[in-house]
């Protein structure tokens, strides 16, 4: 190839990259995109339980997504998700022999369905975009409606991006079988959530992208779990939590492209702290390795540790002055590890994705050092299959 042709070829590459970069920037969706996923989620059974079942939840989920341009300045994103779940759920703990807590599970397998849907309309104006989102979630005993706004602004040189978003959610809770179980509220309960998030991303160099963010959320109303119970002062009472919860997050996400191996490395970290005195650290790492024939292999690992809420206990020997009680394992001190592997095969205008994840938790995993581990701590497997189409 002559030197003139080399220069033309380089300019061609540069122009292609410029166009592609602009495509990745704030622009209205140019293509119709359709995505479908089927998820199979399976919790590992408990080794022991008094009464009820040791089986826990199995959930099958079908998830759909559509993104479509509406005009030169508007696009729309629609999502729909349907879950079908069955299994038993942890109820309360008792103190067994040798001071070891034993989990009591719900008496029979629970069958439930959940449907959620969302619509997001986006308006693009120059280097900015504005978005409005509405979402609903519907179950037999729980209904939620949420509304959100978003604003994204890119710098003129397209090296950095500011994003702001905020939302509000109103939820109604109507526990089933409240006439049978007197610990459950027999009138409709409500919960209100608001949250806001700000993030800043910057292209540090030709291989590295960094995003940092800060979030705040506030929940008020009925924040207890109506189906969980606690033995306190020799009486079985309902799970009882404060009616307010404020949470802050700090997060960062780093993307680094390795030219030598044609792969991308993802590092994510989140710090979380809330008014129930729970602190957590979440560290994720993923390696996107490109392979011949448009295959991509993505091994990943996620490490999670949290401290316990100020009112949690695995078993209550004494009465609490504030009246808050919960033996929910999710409020205990523990750590968890997720190992994942994903395979993606891309074709001309569609791709297929298969992934598997294994989650295991323990009272002494990661930063956690719980002296008496909650017996309901969770292990699960998640297998997902899906495809994406664009035209």
């Amino acid at each position, binding site marked *: 190839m002559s030197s003139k042709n080399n220069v033309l070829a380089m300019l061609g590459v540069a*122009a292609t990259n410029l166009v592609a*970069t602009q*495509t990745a920037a704030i622009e209205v969706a140019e293509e119709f995109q359709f*995505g479908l*996923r089927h*998820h199979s989620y399976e919790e590992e059974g408990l080794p022991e339980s008094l009464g009820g079942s040791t089986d826990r939840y199995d959930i099958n989920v079908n*998830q759909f997504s559509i993104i479509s341009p509406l005009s030169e300045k508007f696009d729309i994103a629609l*999502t729909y*998700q349907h879950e079908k779940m069955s299994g038993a759920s942890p109820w309360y703990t008792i103190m067994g022999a040798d001071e070891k807590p034993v989990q009591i599970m719900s008496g029979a397998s629970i069958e*439930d369905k*959940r449907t959620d849907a969302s619509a997001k309309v986006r308006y693009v104006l120059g280097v900015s975009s504005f978005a409005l989102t509405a*979402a609903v*979630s519907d*179950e037999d005993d729980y209904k*939620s409606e*949420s509304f*959100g706004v978003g604003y994204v602004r890119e710098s003129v040189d*397209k*090296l950095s991006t500011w994003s702001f*978003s*905020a*939302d509000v*959610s109103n939820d109604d*809770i109507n526990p089933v079988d409240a006439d049978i179980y007197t610990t459950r509220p027999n009138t409709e309960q409500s*919960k209100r959530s608001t*949250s806001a*998030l700000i993030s800043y991303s910057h*292209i*540090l*160099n*030709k291989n590295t992208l960094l*995003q940092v963010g800060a*979030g705040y*959320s506030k929940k008020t109303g009925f924040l207890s779990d109506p189906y969980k119970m606690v033995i306190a002062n020799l009486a079985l009472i309902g799970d009882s939590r404060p009616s307010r919860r404020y*949470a802050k997050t*700090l*997060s960062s*996400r780093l*993307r680094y*492209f390795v030219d030598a191996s044609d*792969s*991308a490395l993802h590092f*994510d970290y*989140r710090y*979380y702290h*809330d008014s*129930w005195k*729970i602190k*957590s650290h*979440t560290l994720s790492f993923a390696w996107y390795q490109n392979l011949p024939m448009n295959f991509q292999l993505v091994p990943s690992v996620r490490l999670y540790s949290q401290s316990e*809420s100020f009112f949690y206990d695995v078993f209550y020997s004494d009465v609490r002055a504030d009246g808050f009680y919960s033996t929910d394992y*999710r409020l205990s001190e523990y750590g*968890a590890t997720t190992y994942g592997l*994903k395979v993606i095969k891309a074709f001309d205008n569609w791709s297929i*994705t298969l992934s598997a*994840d294994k*989650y295991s938790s323990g009272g002494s995993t990661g930063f956690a050092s719980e002296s008496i581990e909650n017996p309901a701590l969770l292990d699960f497997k*998640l297998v*997902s299959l*899906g495809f994406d189409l664009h035209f």
Partner: protein
Amino acid sequence: MKKILLVVCLGFLSGCVSTVEPWERGRFTKNEMQLEPDQMGAAFKRHVYFSKEASSGGTSTAGGGCGCN
């Protein structure tokens, strides 16, 4: 100690930052370099972790609740 750590981090980041011309940004158009290459998978996992752990948020607003948490 925190100030020293901050200075070290800023020093590290300033060493990483360089002017990136438009024709050098091709890597950022690759799907694997997006913050969320698989938005559907990421959204579902957020929902799972929101249901099974005490903490949530950080990369998106809270959205609606569900009976799972």
